[in-house]
């Protein structure tokens, strides 16, 4: 996700500071009518009330074709039902995929290249018309239209004929690889075995869109709801989004969404400091407020830690995400595995974790896969650096590599402050490598320039900070884009930054993709991660931990290992 520019954020931060000094004038609650009941988060969740969502990023592109989500998103999932969805449970249980519009996770056949789904009976849109399999097919097809781009690339890569399909506005015939033999059945034909298709079916692209109601790029203003809420108003391209109950949604066909509040009021474009200030004050309507995009920062955490009442209103979660150092072995001296290993040994993960916000906001990582069961995480530490690095071992390796007199390298990072690839992380690495005789020069790039540079096969630097998040909680979307040799992209965004093209790795990825038993596949992904780790193409640094405040009246907080953040579909405010 793109971050707002450093300058604008800095200016915003200083304005927030000024506003605070001026007696919180600018950060007061927007609606003081619904007074706080003061009952706290305990008690049985009941229906009713208004849930306010305070966000920094607007819900732009509120069109199921354009949304890039993991598991269908948080707010989008209130309006868009999908073929499958994420299990709305706490922790590891929540990383499982469960049926949504479909009766099950799909029936694979022909070596997992054909997936067949049957829709549950009696499911309706907000206007009372029935949801059909043809609408799901149409919804997927329109995500191929150039004007509605933005989603994940998997459907284009996996569906037969997907690579050349231009969407239903240009090609009315549609995609032959999606068949709808009757109103409740949909069949997908893939160009290779994909055992993880049920995970992909959680994304909003599998949301039904009735062709008669499609308004193209304007559809996002009022998409037809299949979920418990419908869009009442959408102002300023998703800056303020108001949702109210969809009377035709039936809880009987939807086991996942609880839909307690009567109304959801999403207010975006707020500064992170203001959001956290308002949630901690929890005044008026803010008592029934949550955020779906703003974490607590280190300084805010230090403040919350001193206040027991406030600390009780912090939700903690883990999203599958890894921050790492990437090497480009085409650039000297990183072509030498000994140099890469030496850097791995020299890393001081305690300093790095502190720079990322401390042990409550980041966990040191020695594996590329996140430390969650659904990823099939297998623990390993091939180049043990201990808590604070092993400069002696690093020096020894450098000497063997012919750099006994020391080494000067350039580390590329982004200039975005308080971001995972920030100058703070880079300087922590610089300080650690100095002890091993490695002089690190820092090359900070502005955010757009940074992502263009590190994702370009031609411009890629030798040594840079990078990060990867899960499209769904499995090893597949985590390892394949980074380590599959056939996914090296010469022109365009390349994620295989180590240019690894190992036939053995490629073959194993193909083998795992054939497995439809997701748990069995996970174990194989974990083993593959351990094996790739031996090549020291990356230095895993840390996995972030999400901590988010919520208002005093918020109940039924559920945080899964899939998203790592509280699920708005479960929250009650009464």
């Amino acid at each position, binding site marked *: 996700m793109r971050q707002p520019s450093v300058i604008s954020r800095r200016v915003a931060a200083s304005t927030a500071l000024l506003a605070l000094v001026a007696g919180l004038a600018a950060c007061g609650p927007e609606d003081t009518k619904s007074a706080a009941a003061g009952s706290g988060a305990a008690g049985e969740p009941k229906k009713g009330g208004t849930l306010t969502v305070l966000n920094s990023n607007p819900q732009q592109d509120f069109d199921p074709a354009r949304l890039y989500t993991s598991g269908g998103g948080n707010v989008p999932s209130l309006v868009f039902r999908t073929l499958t969805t994420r299990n709305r449970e706490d922790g590891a249980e929540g990383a499982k995929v469960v049926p949504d519009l479909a009766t099950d996770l799909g029936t694979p056949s022909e070596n997992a290249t054909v997936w067949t789904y049957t829709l549950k009976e009696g499911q309706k849109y907000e206007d009372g018309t029935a949801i059909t399999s043809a609408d799901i097919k149409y919804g997927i097809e329109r995500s191929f239209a150039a004007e509605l781009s933005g989603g994940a690339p998997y459907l284009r890569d996996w569906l037969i004929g997907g690579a050349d399909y231009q969407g239903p506005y240009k090609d009315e015939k549609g995609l032959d690889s999606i068949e709808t033999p009757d109103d409740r059945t949909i069949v997908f034909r893939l160009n290779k075995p994909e055992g993880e298709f049920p995970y992909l079916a959680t994304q909003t692209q599998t949301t039904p869109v009735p062709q008669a109601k499609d308004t193209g790029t304007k559809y996002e203003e009022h998409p037809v709801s299949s979920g418990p809420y419908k869009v009442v108003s959408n102002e300023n391209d998703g800056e303020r989004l108001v949702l109210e109950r969809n009377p035709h949604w039936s809880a009987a066909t939807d086991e996942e969404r609880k839909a307690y509040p009567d109304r959801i009021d999403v207010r975006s474009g707020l500064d992170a400091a203001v959001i956290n200030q308002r949630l901690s004050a929890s005044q008026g309507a803010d008592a029934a407020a949550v955020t779906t995009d703003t974490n607590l920062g280190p300084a805010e955490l*230090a403040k919350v830690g001193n206040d027991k009442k406030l600390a009780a209103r912090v939700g903690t979660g883990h999203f599958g995400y890894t921050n790492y150092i990437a090497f480009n072995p085409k650039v000297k001296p990183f072509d030498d595995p000994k140099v890469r290993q030496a850097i791995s040994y020299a890393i001081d993960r305690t300093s790095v974790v502190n720079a990322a916000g401390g042990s*409550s906001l980041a966990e040191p990582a020695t594996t590329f896969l996140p430390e969650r069961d659904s990823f099939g995480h297998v623990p390993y530490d091939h180049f043990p650096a201990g808590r604070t690095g092993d400069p002696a071992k690093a020096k020894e390796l450098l000497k063997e590599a012919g750099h006994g007199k020391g080494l000067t390298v350039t580390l590329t990072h982004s200039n975005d402050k308080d971001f995972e690839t920030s100058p703070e992380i880079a300087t922590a690495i610089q300080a650690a490598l100095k002890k091993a005789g490695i002089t690190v020069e820092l090359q900070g790039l502005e955010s757009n320039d940074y992502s263009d540079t590190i994702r370009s096969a031609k411009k890629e630097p030798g040594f840079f900070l990078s990060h990867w998040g899960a499209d769904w909680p499995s090893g597949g979307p985590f390892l394949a884009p980074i380590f599959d040799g056939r996914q090296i992209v010469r022109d365009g965004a390349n994620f295989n930054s180590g240019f690894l093209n190992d036939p053995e790795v490629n073959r194993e990825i193909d083998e795992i993709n054939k497995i439809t038993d997701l748990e069995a596949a996970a174990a194989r992904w974990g083993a593959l991660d351990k094996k790739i780790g031996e090549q020291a193409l990356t230095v895993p640094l840390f996995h972030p931990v999400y901590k988010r405040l919520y208002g005093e009246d918020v109940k039924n907080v559920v945080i899964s290992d899939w998203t790592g953040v509280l699920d708005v579909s479960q929250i009650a405010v009464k």
Partner: protein
Amino acid sequence: MSEALLVQEAGAAPAVAPASGARSFWRRLRAQRAASAAALVVLLLVLTALAAPLLTALAGQDPNTYHPDLVDSAAGGVPIGSFGGVSGEHWLGVEPQTGRDLFARIVYGARVSLGVALVATALQIALGLVIGLAAALGSRWLDQLLGRITDINVALPVMVIALALLAIVPAAFPRPVLIALVIGGIGWSGMSKIVRAQALTLKSLDFVAAARLSGRGTWSVARRELLPSLAAPVITYAALAFPTNIIVEAALSFLGVGIKPPTPSWGQMLTEADTWYQAAPTYLLIPAGLLFVTVLALTVLGEGVRTALDPRAASRLRVGTRTGGKEESA
């Protein structure tokens, strides 16, 4: 021009001439208590900046070493201990999240903050003098051209231009030098306007006319006759521009386009500290307080210098001006 005025102006010129002028200048400066105190503060700051390696060695610290054990990692990295982790080793405590020594970063930061402002001010003086003198002494056409350029320069929004320039220059260019060049290169118009106006007045005076009639070239006249007389307004202006330049550097660093890590500058430290104002207030208060004291001291000193160089104001001080009493009684 009346004869009396001529005498007075001519008399003013030697007042700032080297030997006796400098001595009386110091005497007049010392007579102002606030200015003397400010001068002492500035001297201390400059010495601190110059002796940064010595002072940090004395404290046994350096500005870039991480001390992860001195911060509470689970609480976001807030320094352990009171007043931001003040101890015998860390005189001003440590930085949150990194545990770097604050005292070392402050004294090294002084080097950048003062150094950048000094170079920027010198550049403003040099550009202002050259452009102002050229406008005053050159042809009418040149005066018109330089006048328009100066007007445009006055109208330029300094911060916006600086932000744009700093964003496009490659990262390899040494940052402190670049910032000094940008601040100095943009902010010379005030100086050039003063120099031009003063030079135009001086040009019509007899001693300048005499020099020109004796056949000396324009630049020789400018150097030998005009420059000494321009010293007073230039020094005064510089003394007031210097603290402004410190603020501009701090603002640029605060906006994230200034000094790059790990080099500390006070402005950069303020940026890092902006979210910590509640959890670790000393982290914000120390660089902010120092910046405030420095700018205040420099401004008071600048005002003192202006007073000491201004013969009329100096006369009111009743020191160092032999003719002071007579003028007043006249």
